């Protein structure tokens, strides 16, 4: 059975495990959170676009 990501009803809280993901970058390539965390913290900024 495939692993279906859980969709939280509210923004995830401080202390929670951050869901892993991979997304394409405008600068090229695909970035994966767990891989980036090997190098240091990551500030995820969910923004509307060119702001």
């Amino acid at each position: 059975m495939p692993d279906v990501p859980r969709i939280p009803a509210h923004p995830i809280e401080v202390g929670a495990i951050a869901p892993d993901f991979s997304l394409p970058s405008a600068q090229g390539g695909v970035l994966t959170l767990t891989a980036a965390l090997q190098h240091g913290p990551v500030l995820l900024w969910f923004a509307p676009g060119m702001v």
Partner: protein
Amino acid sequence: MAQVRLTYPEIKRRGAEVWQITPTPAAQAALYARRFDLPFPYLCDADRATHRRYGLGSKGVLASLKAGLESLPGMLAGSVKGEQPSPVPYMSGGLGSGAMEQGMFLVGRDGRVHFRHIADIHAHIPSNDTLLGALDALSSPSSPP
């Protein structure tokens, strides 16, 4: 982006990275990357799946429409001046149809969220001092959680 760009060197000095995650389609984002000096990774979450996994939802039709109308003049002006690509791809799905809750999550090397800020559409993001303070707290030995 300008505010975070200003403090980005300090964030990097603390060993951290910034990822801007947007609903921008990949083709549109590639145009941005060619035209602008994007200081940090600009990621495309066109289907909003990652937004939803972090619990960020749509702000509803009225809020979306308001956000779309507010941003339209700037997008059109930028497009006419050649500073931005055409806004047509955004509008093709309905003006403001993609407006989502915004937020910042600081994820530590332990994979946990150590700081978060949830904002309304076009609301201000935390001050640079707040962001750097969160990073400093993360590197402190007694850092919660």
